[in-house]
């Protein structure tokens, strides 16, 4: 019962655009301002950080790289599905969009796994530094021939979600058992890859290796703890930036996937009545999808590699 609006499916001659496409470009302009503001904040916060306070190498680079590939693949299938629609091949379009949706699900699933990995790791800042020579399990924490470490990252035995120093003191815990993580942390991409391989090999040889047994535990008295935080936004400005940016980006991926699924199933009736408009819908949503992909292509190096 709405009034028919001109140029919803046809192109206005003097602009060469249909309404939806122009609307989408405008929306993307505002999205650029949104993510632009967040990236600028990242630059400002990082440039203003005190020396040595910006963590490095705390993310899983191979996984991040794989996720980048997943998202790029989905952009490709979106483009192919649109081409299929242009060629009036609805079945082919559907097949490509299945792949797109699968990629979106894979991306979000991997991201969720990465998140939960972070949430279950703790960093403990120590009142007095530990000697690496006396604690071989800390070898992964020492960079560039450091002999002492000021903080330990790993799993804490029996730790709930979001423990802090306060919660330890309140529940009268005297000491914690932490399993320093061998795998990543404070090393560059190449080194991470090497260690990842080495760890996998080690796990294969130790067939019964459950995570707790993989590393030996380190006992730290609570009185020795200066501060403690899981790898959550409260851990550091770096992780706050990481979770805000990737979380917002993840919501965009989710939104795009829902839009595609909507067009693919409940919206498919339109293909029969107005195929041009249907194709336009896929194109406009596709523009959004490519933008979301592009944001990730900036996010990956900024957060994982730099």
């Amino acid at each position: 019962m709405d009034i028919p609006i001109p140029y919803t499916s046809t192109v206005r001659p003097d602009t060469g655009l249909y309404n939806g496409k122009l609307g989408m470009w405008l929306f993307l302009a505002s999205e650029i301002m949104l993510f632009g503001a967040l990236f600028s904040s990242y630059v400002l916060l990082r440039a203003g950080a005190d020396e040595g306070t910006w963590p490095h190498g705390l993310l899983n680079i191979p996984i991040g790289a794989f996720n980048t590939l997943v998202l790029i693949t989905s952009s490709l299938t979106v483009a192919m599905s649109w081409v299929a629609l242009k060629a009036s091949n609805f079945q082919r379009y559907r097949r490509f969009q299945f792949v797109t949706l699968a990629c979106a699900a894979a991306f979000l699933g991997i991201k969720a796994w990465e998140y939960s990995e972070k949430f279950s790791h703790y960093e403990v800042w120590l009142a007095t530094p530990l000697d690496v020579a006396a604690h071989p399990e800390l070898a992964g924490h020492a960079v560039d021939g450091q002999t002492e470490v000021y903080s330990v990252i790993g799993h804490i035995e029996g730790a709930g979600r979001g423990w802090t120093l306060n919660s330890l003191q309140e529940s009268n815990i005297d000491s914690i058992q932490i399993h320093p993580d061998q795998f990543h942390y404070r090393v560059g991409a190449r080194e991470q890859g090497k260690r990842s391989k080495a760890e996998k090999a080690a796990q294969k040889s130790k067939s019964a290796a459950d995570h707790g047994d993989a590393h030996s535990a380190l006992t730290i008295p609570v009185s020795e703890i200066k501060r403690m935080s899981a790898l959550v936004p409260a851990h550091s400005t770096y992780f706050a930036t990481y979770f805000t940016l990737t979380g917002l980006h993840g919501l965009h991926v989710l939104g795009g996937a829902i839009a595609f699924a909507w067009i693919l199933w409940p919206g498919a009736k339109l293909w029969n009545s107005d195929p041009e408009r249907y194709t336009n819908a896929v194109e406009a949503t596709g523009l959004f999808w490519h933008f979301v992909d592009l944001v990730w292509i900036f996010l990956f190096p900024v957060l994982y590699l730099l």
Partner: protein
Amino acid sequence: MSQNDLPHGHHEHHHGDGAAGGHHDLGFIRKYIFSTDHKVIGIQYAITSLVFLFIGFLLVLLMRWQLDHPGTPVPVVGGLLEALLGEAASEGKISADLYNSFGAMHGTIMIFLGVVPLVFGAFANYLVPLQIGAVDMAFPKWNMLSYYSYLIGGVIMLVSFFIPGGAAQAGWTSYPPLATIIPTDGQTYWLIAMVFLITSSLLGAINIITTVIQLRAPGMTWMRMPFFVWSQFVTAFLLLLAFPPLEAAAVMQLMDRLAGSSFYMPAGLVLSGQPASQLSGGGSPLLWQHLFWFLGHPEVYVLILPAMGIVSEVIANNTRKPLWGYRALVFSALTIGFLSMIVWAHHMYVTGMGVGISMFFQTTTTIISIPSVIILTCLLLSLWGASIRFTVPMLFAIAFLPMFGIGGLTGMPLAFGSSDLMLHDSYYVIGHFHYVVAPGTIFAIFAGVYYWFPKVTGRRMNDRLGHLHFWPSLLCMNLIFFPMMIQGFAGMSRRMSDGGATYAASNPANEGVIGALSDTVIGLNSFIMLAALGLALAQVPFIFNFFYSIWRGSPVLNDNPWQATTLEWQTPTPPPHGNFVEPMVVYRGPYDYSLRTDELDFETQNQPLEVA
């Protein structure tokens, strides 16, 4: 984006009746509540934002009472306040915390829930499609969502008054660390509500821009668009590009409040004498200010550009002349739009961000006054030699010119870092920007309401009541805001809940203090409060007139009662869903007045040129 709602978009069987307005098959709910008609949505925006404007005004009346009589129970409504807000208003007194809440919410409500939705949501929604000869907005469903997003944001803001701890207290600018550590969830409500409001204006902005670019009637070239449409077009771009950084900032402040991050919390922060040791730190309070003012300053032009557009239409119609310098107006508006994005840090001279940066921003700030002055000059020169019809809308439009002039000129001392150091955060600043927004923008809004009321309702508002509204309002506005300049020069801070009593020269604790506030300066508070009461009384005729005229006003005799040239007057009255009886074709510029010497001294835009 709009393409997602496609399956509902088939109208084959309705082709042809769109213009006739025969949509009696819509139920009440689809027609008036969940309508996609841009005019109904415009009216929804207008009514809601007028209510918010009223609420914002009531808040400031309470604040003025508190400033004049610190710590004494509010007369008449004190008991009601206590019943509604509990301990914060015990015995009907306004506590300092409550005063802070009122201050923060007065600014927030007036700007984000009152004036912007009124000038952009209501006026642009209703008039832009009509003035360019379009049947509706480009994305009617998103338009409806825009209104509901706004409404939800507004409701969240209001609800925050009644939660434990009360509404946000850190000013409408919500500077951290204060905003982050303040012990009320009101700030969280504020941030969430802002996300809804930003979404709303984003949808509105996309809609207006797409509509103007795509749906102009044949012959409606860019330079034939009424200046009002231009002003809304530029405004939409400001909303589109300046609001998202505030959304980013709000998300980060939400993270700081809810997830314990430290985007805005510096290392080594000390709270109530205790070092905040479990805070990760490393954040920057300045970051918020940059992001906030990146929106905040374009926002000023969001408030003023549509007002200039409204005033232009009213002036052209009532001077019966083409606007003086139409092209200059258009290019000035575009220049303002661009420059307004690079002046934001003139709000931050006292943050210690550095002389070099201040220098840049004071240069751009000085430059942006040039297009503003061009617009004001064009409008002033449009009056020259005209036989002016002093109708009620015209009175408001004429009053806008000097009032905005005072508002703009008093901004100059704030544009320069050296003089801003003296005046920053004083009542002078309050006086300055209220001159721009209150007797400026709000007078333009009144002009617009009186001017387009006959088109919207089919009835005119009463002239006598209009005069009774205009003259006392003009007087009281000046009596309120001019004394604030004096108080500001005397050094009165804008943020004190006791009206300056702490720093009074008459306070024994301040004996011998140089620069303490004299009794005269503090006494101005009484003067301002009385003037504010006068302003409140002056709105009574308007409110009465508004409702009375909807049902009892004298009916208009034809569709074009002001003898105007632009296309909105070429519709039936009130315009039906689909707007025009027949598709519009445009042959002329927007202001073809005084072309003929007979009593019909104008040609409408859809009037073909006579072939000589």
